[in-house]
């Protein structure tokens, strides 16, 4: 006998529940955590590389790096001064999910750290859908990608807590209209903390680093 069964269940519920468990675990250890997302080449790893030396003596940092394959990024984070660095190879997945982060957390003695930086897989669409349980999501945009990204990926820009605009040293050379970019961001996410900076020249990095320190000390 045909029958309609109402379900009304968020399809990502299972992941969301696990993300909450991750959050509880991170909070219990008193760690501030961020999930860094960006398209490939925007400068996630460079940002982490530039950030870690500036946090030396201020915050004890662990990093988790998600990649489809290779441990190149986690090697770079370790070289830049991360006190612990865990690599997750997603085996083909284009994003990290809460299960993967849970496995990585098990490898870390969280009590030893103040800040956990999770570097997601380079991808602007998928990581936005899968919560990990971190406190804040940071989107790294970069000037050469173009000023239309907030308009093309509204779901991604809407869901983030901080926005790093990397490679501002290239502004004189590319047709990137900061006004147009910022207007898109403002519609979608008026309260986002924005940090225009350059990982090459170091310009703007202090404000970003201070934001991390303030949040971690809270």
């Amino acid at each position: 006998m045909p029958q309609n069964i109402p379900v009304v269940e968020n399809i990502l519920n299972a992941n969301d529940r696990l993300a909450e468990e991750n959050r509880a675990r991170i909070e219990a250890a008193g760690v501030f955590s961020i999930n860094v997302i960006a398209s490939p080449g925007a400068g996630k790893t460079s940002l982490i590389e530039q950030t870690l030396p500036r946090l030396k003596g201020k915050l004890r940092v662990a990093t988790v790096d998600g990649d489809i394959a290779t441990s190149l990024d986690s090697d770079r984070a370790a070289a830049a001064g991360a006190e612990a660095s865990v690599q997750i190879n997603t085996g083909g997945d284009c994003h990290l999910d809460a299960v993967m982060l849970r496995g990585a957390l098990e490898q870390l003695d969280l009590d030893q750290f103040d800040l956990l930086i999770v570097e997601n897989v380079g991808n602007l669409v998928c990581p936005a859908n899968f919560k990990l349980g971190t406190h804040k999501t940071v989107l790294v945009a970069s000037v050469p990608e173009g000023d239309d990204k907030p308009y093309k990926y509204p779901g991604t820009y809407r869901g983030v807590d901080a926005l790093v605009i990397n490679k501002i040293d290239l502004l004189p050379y590319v047709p990137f209209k900061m006004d147009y970019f910022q207007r898109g961001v403002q519609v979608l996410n008026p309260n986002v903390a924005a940090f225009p900076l350059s990982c090459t020249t170091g310009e703007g990095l202090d404000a970003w680093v201070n934001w991390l320190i303030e949040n971690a000390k809270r």
Partner: protein
Amino acid sequence: MGVDNFMGLAAEVAGFSEFSAGFVTKDVKPILLSLSIQDKTFGCDVYSEQQSMHELAITQSILKIALQHAEKANAKRVTDLNIVMGELSSMVDDSIQFYWEIIARDTIAGNAVLHFRRVPAQFQCTSCSERYHPIDGELACPRCSNVGAKIIAGEEFLLESIDVE
């Protein structure tokens, strides 16, 4: 369904081998490779070293939810799934359909038809309260040009109901 079986099935689908070719890196130093492949909550073991899209994980989640509800109702088979998909949810229904045909075929939902109800994005201006659908390349309010808006629809992504027999 094991990984080998899955890859065999996948190869039957035109274009799949092309889609996955060239992405598998042999020279890797995986520290946690196993956890992402085996420790999945979504219940299916079709993870492989294929380059995949997020729709695979999502399709597994849809299947799991549907089967749970079908089982609760003692259903013999699932005939239809009604999925609500917001315009801003960045999901591709063709990809879900593609994965569905592979991962659901040995279950009681193997012949189910997937129905996707698209919900258009709807913004509400925080200044003049105008409700509008954003146009390409412009998100500001078309009435007053204000750049503050609440998103009131378009982010949904849920399994609304299933039809069973």
